[in-house]
């Protein structure tokens, strides 16, 4: 089967700085020239050259970080999934992280419009000495009728393997036809945020600090977080708007960067 868009690259360390090599792309996915928000670590912006994802589209992203490489990845704009009357859209992403590499992956929100069906599978290979951060936001798109949740369904899987053992499997399935408004599901909220951070820097002490750090939460969100089976944690947020989730993500992101010895706050400089 052919791909609507494909993208591959490798991040390697050269003279103390991470550079991107072996870049390959085809079809609707492109990579902008890496931006160095600080002098040693590049930020990559994924670009979709069409207006959005449509019927039957299939995308593949493959990124490799060699030992000590440090990379931030985001998108240039929100991922929009439109009507998929015949076949769902599929996006398959693979990250492979070498020892002591750091990947921060914070794409813009996924917006699923009326009658959209979307499958996303992200497979990540880490070692016990790499750091992986991933924040994802799923939002319902505007519909002609003004009703929410006009998308059909969204299935998003994140599988993290540490030294070949599956250590974390986050499987979200939002189906607008199946009790999505129940309090066991979205319970009246519309936007879903998921964040995973796995890192040897997230020790027991750091987790305790994180507990305190998370005590102050805005009233208008519902948020849960818990320690993972390996050093790290996952966070789930339900909210009414993207910005509320983004604000929390940014705070958590800062917190982890601080623990990893990076004092400077991130600014994606997108807008």
């Amino acid at each position, binding site marked *: 089967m052919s791909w609507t868009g494909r993208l591959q690259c490798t991040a390697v360390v050269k003279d103390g700085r991470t550079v991107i090599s072996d870049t390959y792309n085809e079809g609707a996915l492109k990579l902008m020239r890496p931006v160095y928000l600080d002098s040693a670590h590049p930020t990559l912006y994924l670009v979709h050259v069409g207006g959005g994802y449509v019927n039957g589209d299939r995308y593949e992203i493959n990124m490799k970080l060699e030992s000590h490489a440090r990379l931030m990845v985001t998108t240039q704009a929100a991922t929009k999934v439109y009507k998929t009357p015949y076949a769902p859209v599929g996006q398959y992403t693979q990250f492979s992280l070498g020892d002591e590499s750091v990947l921060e992956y914070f794409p813009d929100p996924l917006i699923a419009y009326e009658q959209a069906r979307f499958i996303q599978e992200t497979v990540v290979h880490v070692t016990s000495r790499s750091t992986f951060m991933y924040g994802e936001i799923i939002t319902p798109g505007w519909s002609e009728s003004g009703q929410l949740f006009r998308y059909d369904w969204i*299935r998003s899987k994140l*599988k*993290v393997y540490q030294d070949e*053992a*599956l*250590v*974390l*499997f*986050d*499987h*979200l*399935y*939002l189906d607008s036809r*199946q*009790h999505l408004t*129940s*309090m*066991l*599901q*979205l*319970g009246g909220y519309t936007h*879903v945020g998921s964040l995973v951070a796995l890192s040897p820097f997230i020790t027991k002490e750091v987790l305790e600090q994180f*507990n305190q750090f998370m005590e102050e939460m805005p009233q208008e969100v*519902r*948020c*849960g*977080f*818990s*320690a*993972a*089976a390996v050093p790290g944690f*996952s966070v*789930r947020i*339900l909210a009414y708007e993207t910005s509320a989730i983004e604000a929390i993500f940014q705070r958590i992101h800062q917190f982890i960067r601080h623990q990893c010895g990076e004092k400077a706050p991130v600014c994606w400089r997108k807008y």
Partner: protein
Amino acid sequence: MTDQQLLWLLQLSDSNFPSGAFSHSFGFETYMYNEQICDAKTFRQSLIVYIQTQLTYTDGLACRIAYEQLKANSIEGLQRLNETLFALCLAKETREGTRMIGERLWKLCRHIYSVDELDEIVQTKQSIHPAIAFAAVGRKIGATKQTTVLTYLFTSVQTMVQNAVRGIPLGQTDGQQLLVMVQPYLIHATNIIEMLGEEELGAAAIGLEIAQMQHERLPVRLFMS
């Protein structure tokens, strides 16, 4: 089903069967604490969604897949399933609780039903997910796949109802009425589970997951998860 099989299943699904499941609310206590579950009506609504989500896509489907893999004698498949089921628990208390229940259930069943099919997994992984242990017992006593899955669903729901009777609290009659009420839902879920693809395993109920995570920090707790 033979009379002996029936007796085995009755024993296994007894709410006093000491698997330790009665110490866990799997996130429901958070809703009770927040008074979102506060009577038979509110509990009933959540219980039905619980059957249609968590029990269908995770526990029930896992039990079915485990039964099939036991039949095919696929130790590798069972190991992968076991690993997947623990990786799916994002909330620490639920993960640890499931581990404890699995261990106790396995030890007991190994002892009383002499099931040894899973010994190879235990050697490498230590704990077995309750759904897999249950499937092994179902196979051992010669229950069909459908009956094994249905009994497992009933056992899980029965524990939740008993916990609600203590936790909300509800009257004993309310509890028994709920167990009658869920019967068609359990039968329907078993039929759905038979048709699901393995790639659907573990689809989470996100609000419940948050409740399971928040449970760690509840100031007053009756249950361990």
